[in-house]
């Protein structure tokens, strides 16, 4: 209701503005006609824009009010206040729950067994599917290479691979990693950052070495 009243009033005022502008200056009307029209349009566009802006704000405040369950008074200031209070309350609740969760996790007796099982299963699967570990490097152009690695999937092996790439001075421009049947396929288009061009065979050698050392590294602990 308020908004309608507002709108109707503004409408009337818009009309009177125009009439006022053109009706008043009788002698100079011709000279200022264009100016009047421009300003009148500007003003009415501005009027509509302002109206829309207010409408937008009002709608959003209504939505906010609908979200907040406890509202004291129904005016604009208190809805903001209530929203602030409600947000604080929700934050507190989520913090309490997350602490509770942490506590439960700490004291939980969930065993480490699933982890070990996982790795055994992985090896088993890989062999079953006939997937072999592999390192393949191809030179695309200059210092750009396409690297394809198939490795047994273990916890943290992706991190190790990325570290290896970093170590070799490669910038990964396109990376794709997929896991299947206990194996991980790492395929990436890399760009050598450093000046010297590495030979394909050299890279393959280095990577194979790294993978061997990766295998030797024990699994990352649970936490």
């Amino acid at each position, binding site marked *: 209701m308020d908004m309608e009243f507002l709108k109707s*009033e503004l409408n009337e005022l818009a009309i009177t503005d125009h009439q006022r502008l053109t009706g008043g200056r009788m002698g100079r009307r011709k000279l200022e006609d264009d100016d009047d029209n421009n300003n009148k349009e500007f003003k009415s566009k501005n009027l509509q824009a302002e109206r829309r802006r207010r409408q937008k704000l009002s709608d959003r405040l209504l939505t906010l009010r609908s979200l907040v369950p406890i509202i004291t008074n129904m005016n604009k200031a208190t809805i903001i206040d209530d929203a602030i209070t409600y947000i604080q309350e929700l934050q507190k609740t989520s913090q309490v729950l997350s602490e509770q969760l942490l506590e439960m996790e700490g004291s939980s007796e969930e065993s480490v067994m699933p982890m070990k099982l996982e790795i055994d299963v992985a090896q088993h699967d890989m062999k079953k599917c006939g997937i072999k570990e592999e390192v393949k490097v191809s030179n695309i152009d200059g210092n750009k290479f396409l690297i394809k690695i198939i490795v047994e999937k273990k916890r943290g092996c992706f991190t190790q691979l990325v570290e290896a790439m970093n170590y070799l001075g490669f910038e990964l421009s396109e990376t794709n990693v997929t896991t299947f049947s206990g194996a991980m396929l790492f395929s990436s288009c890399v760009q050598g950052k450093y000046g010297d061009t590495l030979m394909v065979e050299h890279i393959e050698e280095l990577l194979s070495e790294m993978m061997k050392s990766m295998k030797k590294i024990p699994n990352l602990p649970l936490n």
Partner: protein
Amino acid sequence: MKVYEESGCFDPHSIPDCQELMGLPGTTPTNCHNSLEDTLNVSSYNHHHHEDASAALDMEPHQHYLLDNTTNSHSHLIPYLTQDLPYDQSHWESFNVLPSSSSPEAAAAAASAAAAAAAAGAYTPTPDLLSLFHLPRCSFLPNPSISFETTPGSPSVVYDPLFHLNLPPQPPVFRELLQSLPHGYTVPADDKDAAGVGGLYHDGDNGIIQFTRDISMAGRAKDRDKAGKTTKHFATERERRVHLNDKYQALRTMVPSPTKNDRASIVGDAIDYIKELLGTVRELQILVDKKRCGQERSKRLKTEDAASAADAGDVEIKSLGDTEQCYNTSLRSSWLQRKSKDSEVDVRIVDDEVTIKLVQRKKINCLLFVSRLLDELQLDLLHVAGGNIGDYYSFLFNTKIYEGSSVYACAIANKLIDVVDKQYAAAPPTSSTSL
């Protein structure tokens, strides 16, 4: 200025002269338009009217000013003004008649203006508004530079009702009235942003007073007054505005990734954040319940193990009943987004599968840090895809939560954006090698 044309004693045929006169003291249409643009309406009518009224009422000081600012021909109009400005309704009708004689448009304007005025109720002599109307007048008293030039667009017929409303208080004791204004109303000339209810303020440059609120708010002002004054007791409207702005800013600080600084965006961000918080709380509740179920189940298993030797049959039945109670059918699903200046993180969790999207302005290859974080969070990488797109790095991670871990979306998103931003900030600016 129009008052000169429209006063009863004024010869309509001398209107062109008047206009010429008006044209003289450096009037520019733009000046007028600027002042009118800001106010939606009748406020300018008011002020022009008051301007003239005050000129009429307080002749002594003003006559000097008038003589200074205007030509001689102007000054001779003023006596007309003082003598003949009516203090009763009857003249208004004559005023009404006059514009129609001059031009039909002006008459229509006047009529509609009057209608608008009447409808808007701005001229209803409620105590609040009446006292408001004092203000513009008094502002002109101390101000020497009365700008008559800025008035040309207003049909002065509108002035008249006001005139009648406001003049009954005796003109000579005007100033006394001013002194005795209710608290909160300051003489605008002294205080540049004087704020009575309705936000009148004084533009010091050319002495124009403008209403900051439009006519439609005239009705609302009373309500706001009542609400504001009864509950908060603000001394001034300005304080109320400042207080409200502070509240908006406070709301903005609570939101994790605020966007624009205008009221609508602040409220929009707050709405999104409340929805997000509700989702997080729900998610956490589900996790806690699941965890509790799991713990109870494992306890039961232990007791069962201990008792299994004793009586296998009974224990089995018991455990079935218990697990049924504990069984939590709710599927955890949540979706969060976090945005910072250079990075954007999107985390979606359905049950135990987490999908993370990361977009970061290209500076460092964040893949290493992200993968380390994912290991920390006990997320098993199933699939990664991404790379360099234009100025940005964009990655998609499909992961699975390891059994027993209870990470939640909010935690993941927050940690991720922190790590990424930290690394971004820490890395020195490097020139990117392009493919």
